């Protein structure tokens, strides 16, 4: 699956509002890393608590399976602890852990191949009050009888149809809200490739979910 080069420049100003960007390592975070390096597990516990939700969410959106996401997220943090000596502080600890988690997830998905078994998390009750989602299940949509649970299932099924690199980019950008540059660092490619993959993945998703989009 390769995208034409002309798509590279698509949606150039499509940055999320809450992207973390390439921020220098916060001092406090580095202090925690140094303490963890000396064997202070409470410091590492602080680091895990700080990023556990985002790491879990990324893996969950990639696998669409809670149990797999739980195992992989734990393993990613354990691997990060074991490799803490190789962390030089060139990027944020968060980006570094993210890279470990993403690599672990991609390896897992390669092994799992097509044996997808969805085990979806429940929707937060606030979803029913989100104006964007309410609009999607309003009279204007072609399938107005579709409830949020059905939408969730269809959306996850469509995500699973994407190739891993495309699913990863959609997850990191559209769901997690990371910037193109930060995704490029995590995935180890350039920002243009990220934009290109994002455009292609959105096109694919749009085709799969045409019944639920205007």
């Amino acid at each position, binding site marked *: 699956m390769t995208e034409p080069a002309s798509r590279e420049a*698509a*949606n150039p100003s499509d940055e999320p509002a809450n992207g973390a960007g390439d921020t220098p390592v916060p001092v406090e975070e580095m202090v925690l890393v140094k303490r963890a390096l000396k064997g202070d*597990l409470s410091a*590492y*516990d602080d680091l*895990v*608590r700080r990023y*556990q*939700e985002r790491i*879990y969410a990324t893996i*969950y*959106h990639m696998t669409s399976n*809670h149990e797999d*996401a*739980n195992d992989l*997220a*734990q393993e990613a*943090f*354990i*691997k990060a*602890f*074991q*490799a803490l000596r*190789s962390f030089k502080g060139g990027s944020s600890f968060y980006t570094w852990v993210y890279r470990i988690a993403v690599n672990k997830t991609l*390896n897992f998905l*390669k*092994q799992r191949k097509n044996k997808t078994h969805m085990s*979806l*998390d*429940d*929707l*937060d009750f*606030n*979803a029913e009050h*989100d104006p*964007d*989602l309410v*609009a*999607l299940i309003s009279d204007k949509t072609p399938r107005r009888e579709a409830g*949020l649970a059905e*939408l*969730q299932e269809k*959306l996850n099924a469509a995500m699973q149809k994407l190739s891993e690199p495309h699913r990863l980019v*959609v*997850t990191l950008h*559209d*769901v997690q809200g990371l910037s193109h540059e930060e995704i490029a660092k995590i995935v180890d490619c350039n920002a243009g490739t990220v934009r290109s993959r994002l455009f292609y993945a*959105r096109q694919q*998703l*749009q085709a799969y*979910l045409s019944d*639920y*989009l*205007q």
Partner: protein
Amino acid sequence: MSQDTENFEQLRRLLKLKRYEQPPPRYFNDFSSQVIARVKRGERGDGYASVGRVLWEAPWLQRIWAAFEAKPILAGAFGLAVCATLITGVIYSERTDLQPVALIPGAEASISGPMDSPMEIATAMAENRTALINPAAGLEGSLSNSLSALPTDGPLFDLRADPASLTIPGPN
């Protein structure tokens, strides 16, 4: 293009739904403690953690491991190659024709014939002890004896095999 952008906007709204997917309540309360417990278990030095550390610190090993994980056929081929090397090694080691070497010079001669009397046994043991105490002297003597006994004409080694006979001296 504007149509595409508009459609993507719809899609992005739909993708917002993913942000509302939440793990079971209080799931994250125990998450870090589970990670720390597993880290502690790893620190006690079980084999898996050590292997993992070695793999992580050697990137080329990590790449090989990743290749094996991704392509099981590669792992199978590698295993087959290792087995083939092992079997070849075993076969060649069996073919090597090593002559047994008498570690104690004179010992072979002393036990070549049946010893009838306790006196003969005692003499043989004394000779062996001398050879053990001063192996160089024993080696020198046996070497000069062997060289003088070499035939001047004809084959150097007589490879004829004599049938072995085992006679146990009776009480009378």
